[in-house]
């Protein structure tokens, strides 16, 4: 298993020029406040893991980063989230284009009930990224390749995606996100519905994708966070309790609550 532990991470890019930032972000579901003054920086071409007990707001925060919460009624947000120093909640931002720049992979594999090929070509098609069938073929192939799925499916691209195994479906969803050439990929517990072998494959994939994309991953598994991420943020009751290099968070947490959570005293 080619899982890299980040014990020898020295050349971390400066957090002074983050890819994405959140500043004083508050979110309400109707009357209930789910996020309290969240401040967080996402470093380019790194994996940032969001950990914390259930209901702590980490998935909610993730969905703020590509404005997926817009599709839910009764959500109000104040504060600022930026991508390359531009506020993504600005009125001038086209949310559709924003989501093309910030892809998302969900908890449960959710391939469309179409063929494998059509699943991957869906994004490039709707965004008009290609002019010819050949270009489209190429994007589909490279995306599947990047998601480490090409070898397994290249002889059955026209078969329904729902016939793949759970792990393959999740990697297909990653390929589908990659096909739009996003800058950031958000992953919401991408392995929680997968068996250990499929999980290992997806983790390996995340590690490879890091060279091209900025990745934010929500996970319940602290081992997973330790294995795949370079930075970790610990959420508790809607607040960011502690954020820092993964290594530091897991070996030398500064906050008592972080310590309690990673040592398994609650969560």
């Amino acid at each position, binding site marked *: 298993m080619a899982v890299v532990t980040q014990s020898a991470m020295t050349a971390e890019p400066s957090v002074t020029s983050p890819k994405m930032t959140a500043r004083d972000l508050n979110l309400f579901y109707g009357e209930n406040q789910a996020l309290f003054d969240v401040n967080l920086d996402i470093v380019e071409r790194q994996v940032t893991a969001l950990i914390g007990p259930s209901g702590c707001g980490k998935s909610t925060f993730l969905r703020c980063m*590509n404005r*997926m919460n817009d*599709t839910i*009624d009764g959500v109000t947000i104040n504060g600022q989230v930026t991508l390359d120093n531009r506020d993504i909640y600005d009125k001038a931002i086209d949310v*559709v*284009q*924003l*989501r*093309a720049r910030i*892809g*998302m*992979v*969900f908890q*449960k594999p*959710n*391939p*469309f*009930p*179409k063929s494998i090929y059509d699943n991957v070509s*869906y*994004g490039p098609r*709707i*965004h008009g990224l290609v002019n010819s069938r050949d270009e489209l073929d190429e994007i589909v192939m490279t995306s599947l390749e990047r998601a480490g799925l090409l070898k397994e499916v290249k002889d059955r691209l026209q078969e329904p995606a*729902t016939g793949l195994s759970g792990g393959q479906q999740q990697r297909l*969803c990653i390929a*589908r*996100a990659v096909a*739009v050439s996003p800058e950031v990929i958000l992953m919401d517990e991408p392995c929680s519905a997968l068996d250990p072998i499929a999980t290992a494959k997806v983790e390996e994939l995340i590690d490879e994708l890091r060279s091209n994309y900025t990745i934010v991953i929500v996970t319940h598994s602290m081992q997973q966070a330790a294995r795949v991420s370079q930075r970790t943020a610990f959420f508790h009751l809607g607040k960011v309790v502690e954020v820092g290099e993964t290594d530091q968070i897991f070996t030398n947490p500064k906050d008592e609550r972080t310590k309690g959570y990673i040592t398994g005293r609650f969560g």
Partner: protein
Amino acid sequence: MSLTFLLLAIAALCALSFYFGRQRAIALSGGRYSNLHSLPAHYGTYTAMWCGLPAILLLLVWHMFQGTIIQGMIISDLPPEILNDSGKLSLALNSIFLLAADNGEHLSVSPEVIDAGKRLASLQIIANVALVVVMISVALVGLAFSYRKISRDMRARNNVERISRYVMIACSGIAILSTVGIVFSLLFEALHFFTKINPLDFLFGLEWSPQTAIRADQVASEGAFGAIPLFVGTLLITLIAMCVAVPVGLFSAIYMGEYASPKFRAFAKPALEILAGVPTVVYGFFAALTVAPFLRDNGAVLGLDVSSESALAAGLVMGVMIIPFVSSLSDDVMSQVPQSLRDGSYGLGATKSETIRNVIFPAALPGIVGAVLLAVSRAIGETMIVVMAAGLAANMTVNPLQAVTTVTVQIVTLLVGDQEFDSAKTLSAFALGLALFLITLGLNVFALKFVQKYREKYD
């Protein structure tokens, strides 16, 4: 004593036994209900069930056999010369029943028959009194039996559960049996028809004119029973109706399900469903008095010859009638498409309409096809609108501006005529009904299969 009164008496007994059963359970509990196996109300229900159900079952069985048994008793007393002649026998029985019902004073019949009439009347009275006595006693026996069985450990709750299950089985049995009954009543009359008319002529004949002579000395045509023009008319009107209902219903479903704000939806959805509550006869007025003249007048302006009873008018109005059917079924199907698929599409940067067109609609398509097929079978069977707006002339045409007729319209006109019942004309209505039943049944089965296939995909 009338049947209503008897049933009321049984109901009163049931209420009483509920009270008794409950009281006894409470008395046995010694003040603490937890001493009992079940709640006191369960014991009450248990006694009420034992009181009412056997009595009602007896009533049903009694009514099934009372007539036959009494008739058998009467017949056995008749003199042999009547018994040996079936014609005389049925005549005599007819007179006997008239006499017994105090309706036979004018009859001139033999004294044996008059005696038999009197005997029948007295037998009927005895039978009715006996029924009352027996039913009330069965109810009381049931009450006493169950009352005595009540004890602290008696599992009244489980018993009530079991008995309720049998009651429900009986109810669904009635529903299924009536379907079977309908099919058989159609089937026998239709077979009767096919002994007079060749089924092939019926199924493939191109001419429909069922006017046969009422009396033997009348001059009339032979009658032609080719059903094709009727089915062509039915399909034409159904097609027009679907052209209205499918796009309008589907788009309104998409709007209601995906775009409308909850507030607007709360108002608009019931408003749309009001359409489903309009009686079809009112749609019929609307088609015949508003839409058809409108089409005729506007057709005249355009130089088209629209007949005043046109397939178009009937089809358009029928389409309006079916809109809520299509829209609420497809709304259900589309709202079953998992949120995760929508999220997946939005997450890739698709807009709402792209998501609906490329993801939700294809995923819901099998279900929508099922909904449309159900709507088609509804349209094919629809009667009142076409009776009022489509006309009677069995024209073999696909021109929507002309009058056509449908299978249902013909069934209505055939059965309200003054033909004798076993003429080919009247019987043909049953053959048409059977054909219609088979077509809609086939469509429904097909539609349900489609919907099922769709369901397997996501569960």
